[in-house]
């Protein structure tokens, strides 16, 4: 990589040691005293030790940081690598085309599908155009239009989640952010085709959920999916955004948490340090998982798909003192 390496907060102690080591190793061989050489050896061993421990048993907050890593593979990377004959479909037919939302047709492992996904940019310029992956109502309405197309023509839906959340802007509110999300939820709920969702990065609240539930939920190991951002949760609980790490721990937002809560069907491991360390490998694993899910769902009749999706949703929730029969 030619550009400067992006350092996540929790990596800083390691990176500082690495830089110190690099500096010591730049010392001219002639000036190298035995003491210095020993120090270098010690430091190198420490770096190795820290490297090994740091990325083992990452906490929720560390995973959130990895999920947000700017070099993490994005929806576009998955679309480009996994799908052939991609035709992007633009616009909501009412107001605009939201570049924070991808909608299109594509073929994965021979299966034709409608593809949806939140779109973050690769650099600041693209991020501004894509509003950092934060969708406006017209983006959700575009997604809904693509869902309807999928339903009409019997195409399964593959959806990639990677957003901090729906955009909390003035115009987004005025154009009915909540309405647009709710309509996506209703449409997804009885779409008569398989819906496979992949959490590839951030899964921020309603903005993720709008294209974020279906018949299978596949999560990357370090992707998160949460009812609220850890920062905002920390503000509400402690009036202190700095306590986001603690909040992240409370929210059960990691892929492993989702599997434990029976929400995720599959968790795909990432390379040590995160998906950005080896995007090709991760993308391939996602391709295999999506292909498998589509294969498994392909033969289910539409009405059973919809009935099972509803049953799946109906099971979600933790209720005690439950009455034996519904509503009586």
């Amino acid at each position, binding site marked *: 990589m030619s550009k400067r390496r992006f350092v996540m907060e929790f990596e800083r102690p390691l990176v500082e040691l690495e830089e110190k080591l690099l500096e010591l190793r730049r010392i001219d061989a002639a000036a190298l005293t035995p003491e210095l050489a020993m120090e270098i050896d010690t430091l190198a061993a420490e770096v190795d030790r820290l490297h090994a421990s740091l990325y083992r048993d990452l906490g929720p907050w560390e995973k959130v940081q990895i999920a947000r890593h700017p070099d993490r593979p994005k929806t576009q990377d998955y679309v480009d690598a996994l799908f052939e004959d991609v035709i992007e479909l633009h616009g909501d037919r009412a107001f605009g085309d939201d570049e924070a939302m991808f909608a299109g047709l594509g073929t994965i492992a021979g299966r034709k599908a409608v593809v949806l996904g939140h779109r973050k940019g690769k650099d600041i310029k693209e991020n501004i155009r894509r509003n950092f992956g934060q969708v406006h109502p017209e983006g959700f309405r575009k997604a809904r239009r693509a869902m309807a197309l999928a339903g009409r023509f019997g195409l399964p839906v593959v959806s990639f989640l990677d957003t901090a959340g729906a955009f909390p802007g003035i115009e987004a509110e005025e154009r009915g952010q909540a309405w647009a999300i709710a309509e996506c939820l209703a449409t997804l709920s009885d779409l008569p085709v398989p819906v496979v969702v992949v959490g590839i990065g951030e899964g921020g609240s309603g903005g993720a959920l709008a294209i974020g539930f279906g018949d299978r939920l596949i999560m990357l190991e370090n992707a998160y999916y949460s009812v609220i951002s850890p920062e905002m949760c920390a503000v509400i609980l402690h009036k202190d955004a700095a306590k986001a790490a603690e909040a992240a721990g409370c929210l059960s937002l990691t892929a492993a948490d989702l599997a434990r809560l029976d929400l995720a069907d599959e968790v795909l491991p990432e390379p040590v340090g995160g998906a950005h360390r080896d995007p090709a490998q991760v993308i391939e694993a996602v391709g295999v998982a999506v292909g498998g899910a589509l294969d498994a769902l392909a033969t289910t009749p539409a009405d059973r798909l919809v009935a099972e999706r509803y049953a799946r949703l109906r099971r979600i929730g*933790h209720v*005690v003192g439950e009455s034996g029969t519904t509503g009586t």
Partner: protein
Amino acid sequence: MPISEWFKAREDRRYTSLDPSAPKTDVPDGVWEKCPSCKHIVYAGDLEHTDGVCPHCGHHFELTAPERVGTLADEDSFAEMDADLISGDPLSFTAAKPYTVSVATARESSGLSEAIVTGRATLGGHPVVLGVMDFRFIGASMGSVVGEKVARAFEVALAERRAVIMVTASGGARMQEGMLSLMQMAKTAAAAERLASAALPYIVVLANNTYGGVTASFATLGDVVLAEPGAMVGFAGPRLVEQATKLSLPKGFQTAESLVEHGMVDAVVPRAELRETLTALLGYLTLGGAS
């Protein structure tokens, strides 16, 4: 606590549907309240007669769920459902205080088992399932129990061919149940969609204030969406929008009145006309719905 017990437990809080002669609001006789809108000091006894509308400026005070049920359901018609459903603590959520404590406190202070009350009723003679949220219960946030009760409300209506009326107020999804809360959005929207597919009517009344995961799920999926005057309704709260955009908010931002202008709400209906309007709407929407 089932709402019936709640009614029994609080002799000083009774509703037209149970005892028309009793006072309607939670405020004890002789207490004065300051209207947040016109700053007038209002006699609580007067608010009882107006169903919580300021006699000076028309400001709509928030109603508790039982109060709201009293203003809408036909006399003696309300039969609560699922009153025994109670929140668990699936994430063992403990931050400032344990979630279990928050729930216990809310139950104690509100006298309700959860943030929504649902039940069969008739409204202007029409058979409905009525759901009413209560902001006093952890900001009427939607966790597993709210989601479950909403879903069951739609399912009962579907099975018995009733209309559904939801009076919403909520701070959003309940963060203490994490992703389980978020998924209640999908669950309730799915239940509403099934009602819609059966062409049974669903009417929403957005009350002050309705935000987040509730607005972005079942609360905006009504065939007709009404709002109370001055109700604040949105996805992201005004403070968050201000912070995120560094812009000052336009006048009337997220008020019911501006939502009508922006095409999101069918009509703003003053509380005094709400029952009548809902009755008329049910008359229109059940006509062919049964065929």
